[in-house]
């Protein structure tokens, strides 16, 4: 009963959101600086790509030329929640009328706000409009703490709900039968895969259990987010540096908090080496502690960003190569190349989720490993091999 009512409820919420906002968006037909016509020139393509890569306060789907000769953009606005100088402020992003050049000033809660390149700035006391300095940074405004439901936050929530719905219903199935049916049958092997190929071999048979929730959640979160980034909705969740920083910090803290005596000993007082080496190794090991999560966050961010840039660049070929190949030729070329890259991107979506989870598990495994001091060198050497094996197989 519950299983059947959940998706209906879930779909209702989503469709309500979409419909309500679409209607809402229809009312705001705007002459936006960036959206005055189809994207045509090289500069506009670059701007469009950069705009897509960044987070946004609007959920913009597409725009079209209306019968009244104006551009209408279809999408929905998202709530803006700010902690400004005069306390918390919340309003819908539609109040900016899709403006991202800092021209529309919204006055709320005694403060004035503008949207400059999808960052909300709070104008200083008395300022009427934003003034740009020579370094292209505004001089009379600052960024308030922005807790808005941006497009990425919306995407994160969507991914979270999807995961909860999928795996929650899989978990519920086990109450009645031991072998899941339907979509759960496809999800179950994935869970087993993460358990048997990622967690168990890297963390060890006796300790992996504790970290399963984190590894599974992160694996599926990254994977679904990456895949959602492939859809035409234009999500770019894992391409947001803040998101990957957050994910990597989770790994970092979990590793530090589960590190046993041996782990800390190997960082601050490396056994079996001369004292002078022990001292030299301290900063190196401490740096290594930090570079591990740093490599995680950069790898994920860079891979996804690069993928989006390449896909958008290839789609843009139909405009940039129109002069040389004609409309049909450039569109065909763009289609074939984009299809090709998209297939690779689907692979990358999985691969990045796998690598992130795999390396997280590996770092946790190194932190909780029981060292046998008689065979320390073998142990160490073995672990180093593991890391290199893993790296080699992904390069």
């Amino acid at each position, binding site marked *: 009963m519950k299983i059947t009512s959940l998706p209906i409820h879930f779909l209702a919420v989503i469709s309500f959101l979409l419909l309500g906002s679409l209607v809402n968006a229809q009312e705001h037909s705007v002459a936006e600086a960036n959206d005055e016509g189809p994207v045509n020139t090289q500069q506009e393509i670059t701007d469009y790509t950069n705009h897509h890569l960044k987070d946004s306060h609007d959920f913009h789907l597409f725009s079209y030329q209306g019968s009244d000769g104006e551009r209408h953009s279809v999408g929905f606005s998202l709530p803006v929640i700010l902690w400004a100088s005069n306390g918390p402020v919340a309003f819908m992003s539609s109040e900016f009328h899709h403006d991202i050049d800092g021209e529309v000033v919204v006055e709320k809660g005694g403060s004035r706000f503008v949207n400059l390149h999808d960052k909300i700035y709070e104008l200083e006391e008395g300022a009427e409009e934003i003034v740009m300095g020579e370094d292209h940074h505004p001089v009379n405004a600052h960024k308030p703490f922005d*807790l808005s439901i941006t497009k990425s936050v919306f995407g994160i929530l969507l991914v979270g709900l999807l995961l*909860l719905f999928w795996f929650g219903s899989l*978990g519920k199935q086990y109450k009645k039968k031991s072998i899941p049916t339907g979509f759960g049958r496809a999800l179950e092997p994935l869970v087993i895969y993460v358990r048997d190929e990622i967690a168990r071999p890297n963390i060890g048979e006796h300790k992996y*259990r504790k970290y399963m929730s984190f590894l599974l959640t992160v694996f599926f979160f990254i994977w679904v987010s990456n895949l959602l980034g492939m859809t035409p909705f234009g999500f770019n969740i894992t391409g947001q540096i*803040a998101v990957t920083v957050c994910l990597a910090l989770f790994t970092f803290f979990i590793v530090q908090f589960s590190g046993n005596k041996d782990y800390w000993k190997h960082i601050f007082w490396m056994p079996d080496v001369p004292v002078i080496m022990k001292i030299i190794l301290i900063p190196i090991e401490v740096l290594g502690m930090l570079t591990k999560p740093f490599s995680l966050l950069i790898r994920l961010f860079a891979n996804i960003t690069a993928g989006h840039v390449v896909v958008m660049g290839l789609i843009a070929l139909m405009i940039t190569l129109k002069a040389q190949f004609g409309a049909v030729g450039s569109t065909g070329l763009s289609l074939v190349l984009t299809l090709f890259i998209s297939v690779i991107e689907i692979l990358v979506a999985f691969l990045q989720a796998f690598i992130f989870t795999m390396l997280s598990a590996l770092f946790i495994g190194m932190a909780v490993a029981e060292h046998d001091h008689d065979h320390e060198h073998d142990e160490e050497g073995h672990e180093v091999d593991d890391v290199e094996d893993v790296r080699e197989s992904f390069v």
Partner: protein
Amino acid sequence: MDQLLNDFSPGLFVMQAVILIILILLMKKFAWKPILSSLDEREQGIQGALEAAEKARLEMKNLQADNEKALQEARAERDAMLKEAREIRTKMIAEAEGDAKAQADKIITQAQEAIAAEKRAAVAELKGQVAELSLEIAEKVVKQELSDKEKQQQYVDKMLQDATLN
């Protein structure tokens, strides 16, 4: 780098952190815990079933070996019995043959003895008769006058012709 730092949104970071913590907790409660424990349960069940099957297979194997052994024993026993029977038969035949031969020998010996005795008796009787006959002839010859030598000879011939050797 400057671009990256500028793009880093603290708000998004906080939202992601909060949502991720909530998501991990919710997923743990509603998804991972039941899924993983059921998987463990199922795997243990499968393991148990496999072990039981292996055990059953071994038992079956033992049973088969036992059967085979019993069969072989029975076969050996049958062979032994057959062999014994054959031996007994051969022995019986041999014995019977021996007995029969001895019996026959005995009978033959007895017969020979009887024949010899009869023969002796016959010879003795013949001897007697011959002697008697000879005496008779001699008597008759003597009774005749032994004048005519030719007649004597004729008479002896006639007598000898009349005398039938019974």
